[in-house]
């Protein structure tokens, strides 16, 4: 691999982007200070940093982050789990597919955020409504990708196992499922981001705790620096979740890495490239 590969940041490129970021903060700070921008419109980075420090040191942000994280992870597990199993059902059983698919389509065409007020109304201000909102919003991404992945397997490989007198279960377990993993993982990555959106939106609409509720209440009290500092926390939460799922991805789809590890001879690996594509394409 060449050194100037933009995907692999070097120490130099990392420190450059850090320097640019700090410069940006400096310009922001100076602009707000000298143009006398009111703090309830745009706060100074220094006051955001201060709010962040108070929030963290008082343990307040920790508690609300824990609540939001719990909602996101529970919602993700429930939504993604349901998406996976229903996706499997749709892919392997035609009748199940006929039965479930129309409902899934209707659910998908609906902006789930629009359901959030109802969910909060029905399930209250506690954690349950947030978990359900998160689950609902990440369900479809996983389901579609599971179906697409399980159906992506070529007939020839299926025939290979059948010709060895393999069962349909073996075709599923030895071929369809591993072949679908890259697709499913792509769905899970999207779903995790969606779950965070789902729970924060539900918290906006009514919650006792959580980062979304914190932003909302700070907005009401014009504590914009506080809002910004919670945004920083949310960004860190989102990034960490992405890192985590990336880690799971590399563990689970261990053979993908080998693509980069240079080949013995150049090859025309059209098939293996197929499997690596990350479509979240709709079901044919």
């Amino acid at each position, binding site marked *: 691999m060449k050194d100037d590969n933009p995907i692999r940041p070097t120490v130099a490129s990392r420190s450059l982007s850090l320097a640019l970021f700090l410069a940006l903060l400096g310009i922001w700070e100076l602009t707000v200070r000298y143009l006398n921008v009111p703090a309830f419109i745009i706060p100074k980075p220094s006051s955001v940093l201060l709010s962040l420090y108070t929030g963290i040191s008082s343990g307040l942000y920790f508690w609300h982050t824990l609540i939001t994280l719990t909602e996101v992870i529970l919602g993700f597990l429930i939504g993604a789990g349901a998406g996976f199993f229903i996706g499997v059902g749709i892919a392997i059983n035609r009748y199940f597919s006929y039965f479930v698919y129309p409902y899934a389509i209707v659910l998908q065409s609906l902006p789930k955020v629009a359901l959030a007020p109802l969910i909060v109304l029905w399930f209250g201000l506690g954690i349950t409504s947030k978990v359900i909102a998160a689950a609902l919003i990440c369900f479809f991404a996983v389901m579609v990708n599971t179906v697409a992945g399980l159906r992506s397997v070529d007939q020839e490989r299926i025939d*290979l196992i059948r010709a060895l007198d393999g069962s349909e279960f073996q075709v599923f377990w030895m071929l369809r499922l591993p072949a679908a993993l890259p697709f499913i993982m792509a769905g899970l990555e999207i779903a995790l981001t969606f779950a965070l959106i789902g729970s924060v939106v539900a918290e906006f609409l009514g919650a006792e705790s959580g980062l979304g509720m914190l932003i909302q209440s700070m907005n009401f009290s014009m504590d914009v620096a506080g809002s910004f500092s919670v945004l920083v926390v949310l960004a860190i939460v989102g990034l960490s979740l992405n890192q985590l799922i990336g880690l799971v991805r590399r563990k689970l789809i261990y053979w993908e890495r080998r693509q980069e590890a240079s*080949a013995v001879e150049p090859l025309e690996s059209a098939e293996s490239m197929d499997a690596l594509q990350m479509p979240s394409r709709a079901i044919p």
Partner: protein
Amino acid sequence: MARLSNELVEMPHRSTVAEERAISVHALCKRFRVADGAITALENVTLDVRPGEFVAIVGPSGCGKSTLLKILTGLLAPSTGEIRIGDVAVEGPRRDIGTVFQSPLLFAWRTVLENVMLPADVQKLDRAQHTARALSLLELVGLSDFAQRYPNELSGGMQQRVSIARALLHDPSILLMDEPFGALDAMTRERMNLELQRIWLEQNKSILFITHSIPEAVFLANRVVVMTPRPGRVAEVMEIALPSGRGLEIMNSPEFGAYVSRIRAHFGSSGVID
């Protein structure tokens, strides 16, 4: 055992009594229903493979070669006719057949060794015993050093050799090969032909080898079955009376050339074959 091949085609296979057959196909027809009626893929195909024999089927695309192979693996039922492996009529997939397809069809998430082990996993065979066998098969195809690699680290020719080792793992008596070297470049292909010949001589399998390359068929086979397209029919079965253990230089011999041009004559009217 020189025998006039034209005669063999017309002879009903029962009359060649008491001779053992690894594969016998008798009066096989296969029709597919399509939107406007039916198409006949195979018409009255009769051929056989003796134990330990290398038979090549050569024909242009559309002659039903791959359909024939699919029927032989038991994945597709014939419309009429009879297929026997040994003494038993084929009614579904069998465990004593190894198949090599046009593309290697390796599984990206399995190492080379695990790919070769696939038949053992599917048929729940003894793992320790077959791991040892898989390693010796990898040696046979010259890939011992690559056992722990993943398929995408291998070249196309190497991948196809892995798939040959995989086809041999469960020690099938019969090897079916569907244009296995069709996707390889000419030089790799010749090298693979030599290797396949060596493997066949070492392993004593009955091989049915489908190809659209006439020189490849003549080079490898004891007999060549020539098929013509639409519908697929056997035009001629030709005994190749060249010594076994052939080297590539045999392709320059006049006998080799004579076989090739005799087969090519079948396709003179229907255009190019390879």
